[in-house]
Every structure is written in structure tokens, then in C-alpha cells.
């Protein structure tokens, strides 16, 4: 027997286990129900792709790993791709397809190995045993960057992993790892030191005991980069990784930098290596014809030596050892064993990986900063994959147009804006370019059609008029006596809620312009630490100088003017200061020292002044550039004198951005490196939002004031929108305790647009539109599984108007209603009357939503309104509704008339067949009926070009549909047409009446005589309900 005390301990143990299992993701899934994010891309410029892998036997299957957008799989030879890794870290380093079980087993190493300043981190290695449907993390959680994975082609349990490791700090989890049990355990089989990682890895395809591994000494800080050192080297093992030797015979002397290595699959004695070295003359491609025993320099062209930290990979044609390609600025190909090279065909610059098709070397796939390209002619012509929305936004903003536009800048892909919705979906053609280079902030002038955009380091800041297509550069310039202005690579801009022409920019100073950037005034001293050791970017790069401006440091990184007081301005710096002025810049106070638990010099990434108090603001910080990946987000209510943390243990990964709701101060949104988190309790606890929301780095958040849409700029999956977050404002513990809770339904406005759109082809990405339907939102405490649950719309008298499909998920459910009632009952003909598929809209008014769940009935009012901005007067809409109703009724009347004719024909035919002698008497009736029917509905042909001549039903339903589909008052032509049709209806009715008067008695007589059923027509109402 267990004693009570023991029981208690045991119980607590189990309780703890349960608590741990309830992580933020699971809790989020339980609450957010079917609230679902939508993706609008764009994909036309795509985004950085770090790795491509092919299925070794099936040339239709292609995997790509994006720098920030996850793993995508194509099953149609690269025509289109689908994401298969959304729930996990989206920064991908390397993919490997198991050669022995390629349909099932795929490995994914997270953490991009192309170590630019904006590169993010991975969180280990994953494996799928079912072709990508489910994934298991297989360890190496602290590896940060995985540069290569090789699976032994003869033993799938033996896998080698090149761990490049931490970029911004020392780390012992780097080097070459090996598992012999399919990833359950790992051995670090080759390790150099805390600063040197394994940057490339290949095993001899003919002998899996032969392994080549390149090691690279490297380090990045926020203000510099160093590539190379005495530890960089190329190693070879011939015993499955037990022993290793450097293979440097013929290599340049001195320190080495990044090295890439490739084995020719068709002749494994032939190797190529690209080497970064001390002397420029030695840098380039080396070839070995003796499996690495000795090397010869072959070529040092720009294309082979440019930016080794960013472009390193070499690939050898699987069929020809003399054809070798090198990733680079433009990509290079040699067809003479590496002696001479030419550029690959025109495509987006910055090539990271190139692969040859398994069967046909003319077919190639290339990974670039702008997506994936395919070639059909050996790399001469490059064709872009158009359905990869991998765009990497640094920042986004929105305007007040309807639908609103989203503005933002992208890694190496300029600046853009595009609509949040567009007829037919948000397509490539909807996006407009508003800046070149790398794009960052893009802001719309609050009142004018003017857009501010910028490129890296504020080299250009544009004031752009998209109507006239005129751009002027307006960046602040150094005045007399100014020091050199230090702009961040991603320089801050801000506009004012008070003065529309006011425009802020930040260097080490805050600059303010009151005339849209023509005149600038410095309104602050140097707000940074101005540390001279952190401002020597000219020396950055290591063995290959790399002074792109990306390492500019001690700069202002974020500026925000309070929405409540134009004299309150916040500025955060990349070297960890938080400065605030309450007097429009006359005096500034650095309040960062008041923040508890924040390590010194942690970059202030974003400051969000609150709408709930002048002294209230949120600040988020990122320490990953110091190797610190903890989340830092704080709130002050007293201008920074005191701060409290608004993070919790629920959050995984570091924070990039925060957004406060405008209505409920406790509703917060957090953009983190691994996705979106939402707090409904002011930051005490956080839930991860995962519904159609990948674990992607959310760099920027904005909450649209009118629509309440949360708009996210992700660094790898484009713009993602969570439509109308207002239900989240209502979430209280009382709400959550109820079995069912109706959220107040907002008055729904009937959208009048009915134009054209949708020009994308099957292989192009199309972003999802926001729904324009009425939204009925409720909370279910438990998923509805057993028993019946229905939803319907009723009028205020309880008459059913429409059936809806009830959402049944646990958590928040959203039902859409398109304001449509049921379409009319249509006369049966030989073909369809397409106009008859139109369902009439309800008039504006109040309706009831009725949800029946088992025995429980829940109701809520729904107000339907006409669009107040419509140009169509309400009286016209009423006229439309009146005529629609008339046509609707006429359509059903005609259906009944045809039914009557059909039933009579049927009876007459039956009578005739039963009593052939009556034919003479019945035939004239039948002839008249059939003749009449031929004028009522189409009785011949098909639904396409074989269709018969339109008759009364077709003309009537066309007119009905024409009127019912718009809000316009029916035109004179339509009304004339209506009276002509009404007249035809009358004539038809009269014709039937006349024929029946003349012949019905006889027919009834024959029927009775032959003991046949008399003609009994269903009453009109019953007929309407029947499926006849």
C-alpha cells in the first residue's frame, strides 16, 4: 500500500509531467481553433534558398531548403513546390535524401550556413521516415548551423553531419558528427576548437569509408566579420571517420578561409576544392586527380573567389568529371575540368547551390537570393520557379486604402508594396517595386500618395510618387562640422501621427524633417555608445575584405514618436541604448540601465509606444549577435524609469518585434525568431499561434487600425496576415470557462465589388484574399464530435434563410456567410439554366444566427448593412431587391408551370400507352403541350456549344441573375426585358389553361376508364421543397 505522502509525491510528479506537456504550442492550438493566418506572398522575387537536394532515383522529386522559409518539396520536376516543414525552424542549412530509402527518409539540418549579417539560427537536425509528412528532431539542438549531411549509401543508420556551429560566439557543438544508429546518438568525430566549424562534407559515392571534411575558422560580431585562420583545413578519412589527415599538398601557404570540396560522382579520384587564402593570387579553384593526395590551382576568376562566406559550393556534373559549377555572385560553369569558366545564364544574383538532374545534365536547379531557377539547356537559360513565396521582409507597414496595402523591404530584393486583397487573389502582378538593393523600411505618407523607401545603410532614401513614377533621394547628409553619419544597414525611419509631412531618420543621431525629407535637423546628440572599437568596418572580412556596410554599428536602429504626444520620441540603438525625449528632442534620457535582467549592449530592435499612456512603451531586444538567444521584451509606464519583463518561459527563441492591441492593453503580439506568440494577459503568459502560421522569423508586426488585421513581415515566408484579431480582445477566464460563447458579431457590410481578376497560371503563387463575408465567431470549450451540430441564419420571425456550416473545433470558430439565401427552384429542361444558380442576397437588416448543438440552442443577432461608401443609393438597392424578388418568383412560377406541363404530358403518354385507341383523342393535347414546352425550356442539345436556342426559362433566369448579381437599380433595358418576359409567361399560362380546358376532360376520362391515377399536382409550396 502506498502511504498518502508517497501518493502525493507521485501525484505531483505526474502533474509536473502533464504541465510540461502543455506547452505554448499545444495551448495555442486549443484556443485559436480555426482562426487561420493567410499568406499573400509575394513570390515574384521569392527569397534566399540555401540548399537543393534531389531524389536519387525519381527525377520528379526535388527538395529545397530556404534560408528563412523552410523545406519545400516538388513532385513535378520543380514546376511547383509545397512546404513540408512548417512546424519547425525555417532556417535551413542542408537536406539529405537517404539513398537506400529515398521515398521515405529525408534529413534536414537547420541553420543556414551562408553567414551573412542577417543570417539566423537553426535548432538541430530533423528526420522524416515518411517522405516529409512527419518529422522528428534528432538532436544537435545547439548546432545553430548545419552545412552538410551525408548518409552512407550502404548503411542508412550511418550519417555524417557537418556542424558549422555558432556564428556570433564560441561553441563546442561544432565539427563533424556521426551517428551509427540512425540519429539516436551522435559522436563528434572531428573537432578543432570553439571557433572552427565543419563547413563542407562529402563522402566518396563509390566508397563510403572515404570522407572529405572542410573546416573553417570564422566569427561574426555585430560590427565585424572574420573569415579564416590557421585552423581552417581540408581533411580526409579513409576509415569511416576514425582517423583524419589534412590533404593540403599543393594548397596555398598561410592561413586559410572557407573551403568547399566536391568529388566527381563519375570518377571519385577527381576532386575540386575552392579555397580562400591569404594571398589573392592563390585564391580560387584547385583540382586533384589522385583523390586529394595532391592539388593543382586551376582558376582564380572573380566568380570563384567572391565572398567565400556567402558563396562556396561546388558541384560536379554526375556524368562528366570535367563539368564543374561554382556558386557565386552570378554562378560559374566550366566544361574543361575547371581551367576556364563562364557565367551561368541570367538569373537573380547571389547563387548558393547548383545541382544537376540525375538523368539529364542539361537540366539544372539553382538556389539564389531570389528563389530557385531551372535550366533546360545546361545553365545557359534560367527559368524562375514562381510559386515559392520565400520573400524575406525586414520591415512592413500598412496604409489606409481599402483594401489596405502592405509595404516592406526585402533581403536583396528591393522594396515593394502590394494589396492585402485583390480580385482573384494577390498575384505577382499586384506588387509594385518602390526601391532597389536591399529594402528595409517602407512607409506611406499619412495623407499623400507618397512612399518613403530606402536601401542598405541609407545609401539612398527615396521619396517616391507612385502615380507619376518619380523618385527623389532625400537621405540626411552630413552638414558642416558633422562627423561621418553612421547609418545602420537597416536604417530607421518614422512618420508622425501629428504632422503628416514630418519624417524621422536615424544615424547615430535622430534626424527630423518637417518637409518630407528636403530639410533635415538633427534633434539629438549621438545616442549610441559611439565605441570606436565597433566602428572600424573598413577592416571587416578577414582573409577576404568585406566592407559592404552590413557591419555598421553604434547606430540608431528604431525610432518611434508617441501616438499621444508628438514631443515624446523614443530611439533604440543597435549597441543597446534606449533613449527618450519628452520635449521634441531638446533633451534625451538614456533609460536602458533601468531595465532589469537585460545584458549590456543588447540591441534594441523595436520600441512600440503605447496608445494607453504617454509614458507607456514596449521595447524588445535581441542578443543573438552576442550569442544570446533569450527573449527580451519589456514594458514601461513611466517613460522608462521602471520596466517589467513581458516575456514568459512559453517563448522559444529571441524576439524581434512586439505589437500592442489598440483596444485591450493586455492583448499583445510577439514576433519571434520561431513564429508568432500571442498574450491575452499582458505578457504574463504566451501562446504560440500555429494555424497556417509557420515557425518563421517574424521580423515586424503591424496591427491595422480599421480592420484589426495583424500584418506580419516574415523573414522567409513573405507577408502573413491574421485577419481581424478583435475576438481575442474578448478572451477572459469567464469566456473560456463557458461551454459555448458567442462573440459579439460586428455589423457585416455587403461588399459590392464584382469585377474581374485572376490571371495567374497554375505554377504561380496566388495569395489568399480576406473574406468579405459576414463572420460569425464563437468559442467552443470542447471539440464537437458526437451528435448533431448545425448553424443557420433566420430572419427575425424565425424563418430559415440560409444553412451554414458550423465550425466544430475546440477554441475559436469562425463561420462565413456570403449574405446569400437559397437560389430559386428552376424549371427542368434538357440543360442547365446557369442564371438559376444565382442565390439572391438578403436586404440590409437584422438577422439571427442560430446554432444548435445537440439539445442546446445558441442565438445571436447579426446586423447586415449596405456599404456606406457605396455610390449606389439605398433606394436603387431597394428597387433592385424588388425586381430580383419579382424575377425570383417568376422563375419559380415557371418551374411550377413546366412541372404541370410535364405531369400532364406524362399522364397523357401513360393513358395513350395503356389505351392505344385513345391516341387520336389524346394526340392533339400532347402536341399542344409539347409545343408549349418547347417555348418554355430548352429541350435539346447540351450545356456547351451544342446548346439549343434559349427559351423562356433561359431568358428569365439570365435576367434574374443579371439583376440579382448587382446592387444597381434595374436599367430601363432590363425592365423592358422583364415586361416582355412577363408577357411571355402570361401567354404560356393562358396557352396551358386553354389546352387543358379543351382536352383535360377527355384525358381524365381515359385515365379513369383505364383505372389510371388522375393527375394530382403537388401544391406549390410542396413542389418547391421537392427535388423534382
Amino acid at each position, binding site marked *: 500500500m502506498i502511504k498518502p505522502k*508517497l501518493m502525493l*509525491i507521485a501525484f505531483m*510528479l*505526474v502533474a509536473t*509531467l502533464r504541465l510540461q506537456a502543455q506547452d505554448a*504550442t*499545444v495551448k495555442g*492550438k*486549443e*484556443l485559436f481553433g480555426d482562426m*487561420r493566418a493567410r499568406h499573400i506572398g509575394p513570390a515574384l522575387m521569392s527569397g534566399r534558398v540555401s540548399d537543393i537536394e534531389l531524389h536519387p532515383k*525519381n527525377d*520528379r522529386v526535388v527538395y529545397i531548403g530556404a534560408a528563412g522559409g523552410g523545406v519545400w*518539396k*516538388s*513532385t*513535378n520536376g520543380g514546376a*511547383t513546390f*509545397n512546404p513540408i516543414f512548417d512546424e519547425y525552424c525555417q532556417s535551413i542549412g542542408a537536406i539529405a535524401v537517404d539513398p537506400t530509402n529515398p*521515398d521515405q527518409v529525408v534529413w534536414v539540418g537547420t541553420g543556414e550556413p551562408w553567414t551573412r549579417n542577417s543570417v539566423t539560427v537553426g535548432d538541430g537536425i530533423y528526420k522524416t521516415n*515518411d*517522405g516529409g*509528412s*512527419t518529422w522528428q528532431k534528432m538532436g544537435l539542438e545547439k548546432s545553430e548551423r548545419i552545412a552538410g549531411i551525408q548518409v552512407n549509401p550502404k548503411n542508412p543508420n550511418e550519417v555524417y553531419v557537418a556542424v558549422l556551429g555558432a556564428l556570433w560566439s564560441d561553441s563546442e557543438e561544432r565539427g563533424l558528427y556521426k551517428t551509427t544508429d540512425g540519429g539516436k546518438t551522435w559522436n563528434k568525430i572531428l573537432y578543432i576548437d570553439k571557433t572552427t566549424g565543419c563547413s563542407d562534407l562529402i563522402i566518396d559515392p563509390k566508397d563510403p569509408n572515404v570522407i572529405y571534411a572542410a573546416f573553417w575558422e570564422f566569427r561574426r560580431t555585430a560590427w565585424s566579420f572574420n573569415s579564416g585562420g590557421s585552423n581552417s583545413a581540408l581533411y580526409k578519412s579513409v576509415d569511416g571517420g576514425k582517423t583524419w589527415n589534412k590533404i593540403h599538398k599543393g594548397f596555398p601557404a598561410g592561413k586559410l578561409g572557407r573551403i568547399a570540396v566536391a568529388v566527381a560522382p563519375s570518377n571519385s579520384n577527381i576532386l575540386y576544392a575552392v579555397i580562400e587564402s591569404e594571398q589573392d593570387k592563390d585564391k580560387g579553384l584547385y583540382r586533384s586527380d589522385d583523390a586529394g593526395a595532391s592539388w593543382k590551382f586551376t582558376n582564380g576568376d572573380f566568380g570563384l573567389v567572391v565572398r567565400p562566406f556567402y558563396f562556396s559550393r561546388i558541384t560536379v556534373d554526375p556524368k562528366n568529371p570535367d563539368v564543374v559549377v561554382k556558386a557565386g555572385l552570378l554562378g560559374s560553369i566550366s566544361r574543361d575540368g575547371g581551367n576556364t569558366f563562364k557565367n551561368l545564364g541570367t538569373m537573380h544574383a547571389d547563387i548558393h547551390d547548383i545541382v544537376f538532374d540525375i538523368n539529364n545534365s542539361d537540366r539544372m536547379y539553382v538556389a539564389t537570393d531570389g528563389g530557385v531557377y531551372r535550366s533546360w539547356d545546361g545553365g545557359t537559360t534560367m527559368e524562375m520557379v514562381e510559386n515559392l513565396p520565400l520573400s524575406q521582409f525586414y520591415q512592413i507597414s500598412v496604409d489606409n486604402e481599402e483594401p489596405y496595402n502592405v509595404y516592406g523591404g526585402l533581403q536583396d530584393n528591393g522594396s515593394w508594396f502590394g494589396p492585402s486583397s485583390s480580385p482573384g487573389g494577390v498575384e505577382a502582378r499586384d506588387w509594385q517595386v518602390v526601391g532597389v538593393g536591399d529594402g528595409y523600411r517602407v512607409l506611406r505618407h499619412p495623407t499623400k500618395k507618397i512612399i518613403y523607401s530606402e536601401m542598405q545603410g541609407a545609401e539612398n532614401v527615396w521619396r517616391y510618387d507612385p502615380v507619376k513614377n518619380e523618385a527623389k533621394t532625400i537621405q540626411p547628409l552630413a552638414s558642416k562640422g558633422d562627423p561621418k553619419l553612421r547609418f545602420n544597414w537597416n536604417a530607421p525611419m518614422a512618420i508622425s501621427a501629428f504632422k503628416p509631412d514630418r519624417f524621422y531618420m536615424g544615424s547615430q543621431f535622430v534626424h527630423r524633417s518637417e518637409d518630407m525629407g528636403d530639410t533635415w535637423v538633427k534633434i539629438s546628440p549621438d545616442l549610441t555608445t559611439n565605441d570606436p572599437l565597433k566602428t572600424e568596418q573598413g577592416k571587416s572580412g578577414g582573409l577576404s575584405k568585406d566592407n559592404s556596410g552590413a557591419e555598421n554599428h553604434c547606430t540608431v536602429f528604431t525610432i518611434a514618436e508617441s501616438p499621444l504626444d508628438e514631443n515624446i520620441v523614443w530611439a533604440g540603438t543597435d549597441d543597446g541604448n534606449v533613449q527618450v525625449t519628452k520635449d521634441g528632442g531638446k533633451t534625451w534620457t538614456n533609460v536602458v540601465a533601468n531595465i532589469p535582467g537585460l545584458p549590456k549592449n543588447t540591441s534594441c530592435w523595436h520600441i512600440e509606444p503605447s496608445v494607453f499612456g504617454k509614458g507607456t512603451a514596449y521595447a524588445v531586444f535581441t542578443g543573438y549577435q552576442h550569442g544570446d538567444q533569450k527573449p527580451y521584451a519589456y514594458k514601461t509606464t513611466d517613460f522608462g524609469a521602471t520596466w517589467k519583463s513581458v516575456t514568459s518561459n512559453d517563448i522559444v527563441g529571441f524576439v524581434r518585434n512586439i505589437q500592442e492591441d489598440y483596444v485591450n492593453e493586455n492583448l499583445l503580439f510577439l514576433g519571434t525568431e520561431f513564429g508568432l506568440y500571442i498574450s491575452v494577459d499582458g505578457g504574463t503568459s504566451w501562446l504560440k499561434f500555429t*494555424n497556417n502560421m509557420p515557425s518563421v522569423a517574424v521580423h515586424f508586426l503591424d496591427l491595422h487600425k480599421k480592420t484589426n488585421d495583424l500584418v506580419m513581415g516574415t523573414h522567409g515566408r513573405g507577408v502573413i496576415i491574421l485577419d481581424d484579431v478583435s475576438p481575442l480582445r474578448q478572451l477572459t477566464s469567464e469566456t473560456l470557462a463557458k461551454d459555448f460563447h458567442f462573440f459579439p458579431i460586428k455589423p457585416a457590410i455587403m461588399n459590392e465589388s464584382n469585377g474581374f481578376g485572376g490571371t495567374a497560371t497554375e505554377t504561380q503563387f496566388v495569395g*489568399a484574399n480576406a473574406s468579405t463575408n459576414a463572420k460569425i465567431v464563437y468559442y*467552443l470549450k470542447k*471539440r*464537437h*464530435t*458526437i*451528435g*448533431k*451540430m*448545425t448553424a443557420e441564419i433566420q430572419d427575425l420571425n424565425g424563418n430559415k434563410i440560409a*444553412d451554414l*456550416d458550423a465550425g*466544430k*473545433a*475546440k*477554441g475559436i470558430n469562425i463561420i*462565413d456567410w*456570403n449574405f*446569400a439565401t*437559397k437560389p430559386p427552384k*428552376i*424549371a*427542368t*429542361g434538357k440543360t*442547365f*439554366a446557369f442564371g*438559376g*444558380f444565382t*442565390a439572391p442576397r438578403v436586404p440590409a437588416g437584422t438577422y439571427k444566427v442560430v446554432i444548435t448543438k445537440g439539445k442546446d440552442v445558441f442565438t445571436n443577432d447579426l446586423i447586415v448593412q449596405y456599404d456606406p461608401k457605396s455610390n449606389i443609393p439605398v433606394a436603387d438597392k431597394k428597387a433592385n431587391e424588388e425586381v430580383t424578388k419579382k424575377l425570383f418568383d417568376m422563375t419559380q412560377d415557371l418551374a411550377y408551370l413546366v412541372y404541370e406541363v410535364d405531369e400532364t404530358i406524362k399522364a397523357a403518354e401513360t393513358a395513350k400507352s395503356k389505351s392505344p385507341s385513345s391516341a387520336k383523342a389524346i394526340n392533339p393535347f400532347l402536341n399542344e403541350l409539347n409545343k408549349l414546352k418547347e417555348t418554355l425550356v430548352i429541350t435539346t442539345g*447540351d*450545356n*456547351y456549344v*451544342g446548346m439549343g436556342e434559349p427559351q423562356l426559362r433561359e431568358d428569365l433566369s439570365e435576367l434574374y441573375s443579371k439583376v440579382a448579381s448587382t446592387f444597381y437599380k434595374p436599367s430601363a433595358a432590363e425592365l423592358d426585358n422583364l415586361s416582355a418576359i412577363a408577357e411571355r409567361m402570361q401567354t404560356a399560362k393562358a396557352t396551358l389553361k386553354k389546352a387543358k380546358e379543351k382536352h383535360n376532360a377527355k384525358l381524365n376520362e381515359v385515365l379513369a376508364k383505364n383505372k389510371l391515377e388522375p393527375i394530382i399536382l403537388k401544391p406549390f409550396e410542396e413542389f418547391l421543397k421537392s*427535388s*423534382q
Partner: protein
Amino acid sequence: MKRKLLMIAAGLLVSTAAMAQTADEIIAKYFENTGGLDKWKSLKGLKYSGKLNQGGMEIPFENYVFKDGRQTTIYSLQGKTIRSNVFDGKDLWSDNYMTMKAEKSDAETTENFKQEAADFPDAFVDYKAKGYKVEFLGKETVEGSETFKLKLTKKPIKVDGKETENVVYYYFDATEYVPLVMETEIKAGPGKGMVSQVKYSDYQELSNGLIIAFTQAFGAKGGPSQPITMTSIQIDPTLDAKELAFPAGQ
């Protein structure tokens, strides 16, 4: 004393682990909770009747499925009858919407359909005898609910001439032991490569005591879904063979 405590705690953990489900236990419980495996096995056919709601327009349909794989779906639209996925054991055909005439599916689709049709009444019935494999992949929160995820590997199908694996994932409610969601990769057509999803709800009892989902919502994972709700499900219906035969000389 301390050691004893630890042992008890460890024992408790072990028993927690032992409580973990096996795929066969989940399947057994599913059949047990929905009327019993014998009842499932004795089914000869089902007739589903319902209405498809297309933005207000209701399209009545009847779907007959028989144990021997024969099946048909009959829609009624503007008084016209449209037949879709009619399978008489040999030919798979549907009415062409333009001509309203029957057309056969291509040989590969027919072959795959025939293979799938043999699953009646449920893929898990006698799955081992059918050569299927089931794996329990663990717990997952789906539709806000805790579920058991099962992987069902069926016989491969052919896609554009290539043999392709045929895997379906089922998420069983962890309390009720009935499927909430079924997922499978779309193998052909415009959605190729995407994951299709069917959500099951409104489980209700049939006249013979079997419990079946009356609502099935179809969609792509992560996207909206189109629910289809049955108004009735009839057991062991009859249907004239000529309704299933490919119409000759149309």
C-alpha cells in the same frame, strides 16, 4: 526511504508509459466504441443522403457504396441527375457536365479507385489481411483536441505511370477514439503535393447501432474546408445493377 520513494515514482512513470497506446488498441477501441467490429464487418453497403451547400445553393446527393467496391454518387441539379464516380467493379465513369453523357475515367485512375474501393466499410477493418501497415506516431493536438496519430500504409498506387506509396494519416480523438481528421498527400491534379484533409464530426448512430460521422469537411490542410452533412445514412441499401453499368450507345 528516499530510495523507496524514487522507486515508486519511477514505477508510476513506467505505468504512465504503459498506458501509452498501441495502434491496435486504438483501432480496437474505435470499432468497439462505434458499434463493434462484427457489425462493421457484416455491413453490405451504405447509402449516404445529404445536401451539398454551395454558397447557398443546395445540391442534394445520394452516395451508394457497397462491400464489393461498387459505388455511385448521384447529384440532383435543376431537376437533372448527374452521376459521378460510378463504379460497377470494372468501369469507373462520371457524367460530363457539358454533354451530360457518361465518360470513363482513365485506366490508372480506375485501377487506383478499384483498389481504394476495396476498403469498405473502413480502411482499418482487417487491415492486416489487406496487407496494410499501421503505426502509432504519438499524440498531437488537432482541431484543438488531443488525438492519437496513426499512419496507415496501404498498397501503393500508380501516379502517371509510377508506383507511388499510399499513406493516410488518421487522428483519433483521445477520449472518444473516433477519427477527427484524416490526411493524405494529393498525388495528382492541381493540388498535387498539397495535403488533403477530411474532418469528421456529428457522429451519430445508425439503425443497426453503428456510429458514423454524419459530417465530413473536405479541404487542403491549412485552408478552408467544405463540409458535407448527411441527412440520413441507410444500411445495406439495394440498387439496380443497371444504375452502375456504363451506359451503352448514349
